[in-house]
């Protein structure tokens, strides 16, 4: 149904839809028009994010996803069309459509303009990037184009703020304008069928046209739900009649639009021949047959190194801050009756400790977002997809999946969010499901401990460190498993026709710092709020399972030891002994906790992996955040929970304990196969509540988040099982 909106009145907020091709500077324009108050949300049932902002108190701007056409082939693509037609529940129809166009790329951009002009809404065309057009030797007559189209045309250079006030004035005026009368006409083959169809099925002109042209599309589904199967049959018959006359309707549409566009451009634009642009010259190297890939690999390595370099000190800062917070809160309790009690522990260990252990990854996440945003804004992202496409086709995916998967080597959260650029929903979900298999930096502590403890420190051929090889090998485990898994998903669960890889390679441009920063801030905010709430809940639960039952007898036993120590020891010796008692007590309580009970309970299931209940328990504890395993193992082995894997002293202590650990019958628990099986489990398991929360948000459903968790756990279990069993047979 095409709803007609009531004219903007003094009391109602006017709504403006902003739409355009990708790479037209739409985000920059949106940010410039709305300042920093955006609201994001979700359209129900799809993964498209809803983004709105206010131009002033009266006018709301809705930022629609970048698209090349209104021919929607998936529910995600259909959201924009539905919104523009006023068919979305709770979304009143916009009063005006502003189509942003890349002035240096007019022909293809005008295609969408011609479609938007058929919606029955007033339209303004924004000729953005007027400077790039000039550099490309293109002169455009705004008035000429405007009179040809029949709608206002405003030039802007959004990232310099030029043309914006003129645009705002135009918006205010044209909110009350009439819908334009398109100067192009459907060819007879189509108009004949449309006349019959629209007289039969009333008030759905736009959708009906789209359903006729876009075979088996979202528009057809919409028509079917309103008018039933007979309408679909009528459409199919109309389509065959058109095809019988020579060409399919889609070809006729493209021909009609481009014929008009080409004529309009001939009349109202001029292009002077220029040599290869700066962008072309850059591409000659960056996508060169040989150098291109090397430069690309070099760039990726540089990005990663920089992230770790910069994030390192900041992470230390976060660590110190949280440790300080723990100390301060601890002091609140000092001397009081509650000292060392449940509330003390909940605040210090549970909440501050738990939340801190995840927030410490925020610097890395923010830097990664920043690099991804810069790569995308400057245009290099498309080149990355271009270079890597052939490789990714092994898994049934496309080059678009490269950056999301690559990013996941630092942290899966930005990786999963970067998957938004993948248009095809099946490819996107597959990428999201497989990205956490890339070994992220949180897995490093586990790899370090296990490798240092149980892989012989020998050098192969005199120089290749075996420990280093095993460490690197763990990264490959993720990659090697991801390939068949992605392949399998695309063949089974997420089966569907191969999506087209047709990809625009936009001209390189200097990334807009403001746009990048805004994107980073929004992403960071989203992470902290969404993941943060889940992490908070999980931290409290884990704390609870670790703390309770907190048997009094145990506390008493150690209190007695403390009193003894205070009578017989002094000064630093006393302090050391007290610290030791603290660790012993923590260990005893831990071994008596509900978590430990769970560990004992699941031990039989993990024995085939070579694990005892302590390992099982530490692994279970690591489910919300995998790096927790180190501190958990520390506590279990009476070393306290503050171990730092990067400190040689701490590492040695823990390794000693692990090596000494035995089963009840005296056999050693840890061996190379056991260590390997632990590493493989961690490599393949999704032990990160924040990632699951992000997957839930990006897929807009718990189904995929849950499935992610389930399949990776099974994969990890089987992988660890095979590793241990085969490892024991060999070794």
């Amino acid at each position, binding site marked *: 149904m095409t709803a007609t909106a009531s004219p903007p009145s003094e009391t109602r907020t006017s709504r403006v839809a902003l739409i355009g091709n990708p790479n037209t500077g739409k985000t920059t324009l949106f940010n410039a028009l709305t300042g920093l108050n955006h609201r994001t949300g979700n359209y129900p049932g799809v993964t498209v994010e809803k983004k709105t902002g206010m131009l002033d108190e009266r006018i709301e701007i809705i930022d629609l996803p970048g698209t*090349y*056409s209104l*021919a929607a*082939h998936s529910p995600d693509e259909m959201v924009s069309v539905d919104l523009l037609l006023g068919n979305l529940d709770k979304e009143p129809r916009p009063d005006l459509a502003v189509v942003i166009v890349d002035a*240096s*790329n*007019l*022909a*293809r951009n005008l*295609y969408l303009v011609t479609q938007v002009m058929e919606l029955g809404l007033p339209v303004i065309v924004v000729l953005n990037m007027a400077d790039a057009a000039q550099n*490309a030797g293109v002169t455009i007559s705004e008035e000429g184009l405007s009179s040809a189209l029949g709608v206002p045309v405003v030039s802007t250079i959004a990232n310099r703020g030029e043309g914006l006030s003129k645009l705002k004035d135009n918006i205010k005026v044209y909110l009350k304008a009439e819908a334009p009368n398109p100067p192009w006409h459907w060819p007879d083959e189509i108009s004949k069928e449309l006349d019959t169809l629209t007289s039969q099925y009333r008030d759905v002109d736009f959708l009906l046209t789209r359903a006729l042209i*876009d*075979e088996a599309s979202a528009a057809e589904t919409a028509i079917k739900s309103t008018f039933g199967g007979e309408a679909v049959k009528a459409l199919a018959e109309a389509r065959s009649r058109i*095809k019988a006359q020579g060409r*399919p309707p*889609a*070809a006729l*549409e*493209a*021909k009609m639009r*481009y014929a008009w566009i080409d004529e309009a451009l001939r009349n109202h634009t001029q*292009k002077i021949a220029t040599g290869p642009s700066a962008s072309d010259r850059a*591409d000659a190297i960056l*996508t*060169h*047959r*040989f150098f*291109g*890939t090397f430069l690309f690999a070099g760039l990726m390595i540089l990005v990663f190194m920089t992230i770790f370099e910069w994030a390192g000190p900041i992470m230390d800062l976060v660590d110190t801050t949280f440790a300080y917070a723990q100390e301060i809160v601890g002091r609140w309790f000092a001397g009081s009756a509650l000292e060392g009690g449940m509330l003390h522990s909940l605040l210090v260990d549970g909440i501050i400790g738990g939340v801190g252990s995840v927030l410490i990854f925020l610097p890395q996440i923010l830097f990664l977002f920043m690099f991804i945003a810069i790569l995308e804004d400057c245009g290099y992202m*498309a080149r990355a997809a*271009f*270079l890597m*496409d*052939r*490789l990714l086709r092994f898994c049934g995916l496309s*080059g678009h999946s490269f950056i999301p998967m690559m990013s996941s080597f630092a942290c899966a959260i930005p990786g999963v969010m970067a998957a938004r650029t993948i248009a095809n929903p099946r490819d996107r979900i597959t990428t999201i499901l497989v990205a956490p298999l890339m070994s992220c930096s949180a897995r490093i502590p586990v790899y370090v401990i296990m490798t240092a403890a149980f892989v012989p420190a020998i050098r192969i051929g005199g120089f290749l460190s075996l420990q280093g090889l095993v460490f690197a090998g763990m990264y490959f485990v993720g990659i090697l498993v991801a390939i068949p898994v992605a392949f399998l998903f695309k063949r089974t669960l997420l089966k569907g*026709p191969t999506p*087209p*890889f*047709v*990809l*625009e*390679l*936009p*001209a390189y441009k200097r990334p807009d710092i403001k746009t990048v920063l805004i994107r980073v801030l929004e992403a960071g905010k989203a992470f902290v709020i969404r993941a943060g709430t889940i992490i908070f809940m999980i931290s409290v639960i884990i704390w609870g399972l670790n703390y309770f039952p907190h048997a009094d007898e145990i506390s008493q036993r150690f209190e007695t030891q403390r009193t003894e120590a205070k009578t017989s020891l002094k000064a630093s010796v006393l302090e050391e002994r007290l610290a030791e008692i603290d660790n012993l007590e923590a260990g005893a309580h831990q071994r008596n906790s509900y978590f430990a009970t769970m560990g004992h309970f699941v031990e039989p299931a993990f024995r085939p992996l070579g694990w005892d209940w302590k390992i099982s328990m530490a692994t279970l504890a690591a489910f919300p955040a995998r790096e927790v395993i180190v501190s958990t193992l520390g506590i279990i082995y009476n070393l306290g929970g503050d171990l730092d894997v990067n400190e040689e002293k701490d590492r040695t202590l823990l390794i000693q304990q692990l090596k000494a650990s035995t089963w009840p019958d005296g056999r050693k628990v840890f061996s190379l196969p056991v260590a390997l099986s632990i590493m493989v489990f961690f490599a393949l398991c999704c032990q990160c509540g924040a990632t699951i929360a992000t997957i839930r948000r990006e897929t807009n459903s718990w189904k995929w988040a849950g499935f992610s968790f389930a399949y990776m756990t099974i994969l990890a279990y089987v992988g660890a099982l095979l590793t241990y069993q085969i490892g024991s047979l060999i070794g």
Partner: protein
Amino acid sequence: MGVKYLSDYTPGEGGTIARIVGEGTLQQRLMEMGVLEGTSLEVVRVAPLGDPMEIEIRGYKLSLRKSEASCVEMEA
């Protein structure tokens, strides 16, 4: 001399599109992007691994896989 398709073209070669073969979503997408009969184009380069290819058409650069380019029939 058989029919030539865009997928047969090498960097530096150009021509005019004779027609788009097939009637699916891919073909529609290509035509929406300006790849339709009567349009002239030039092949700029091919990716390091031999696929996809990059063409210049209607004033912009477009990348498409060889399998996709094989539905673009070129004028002799």
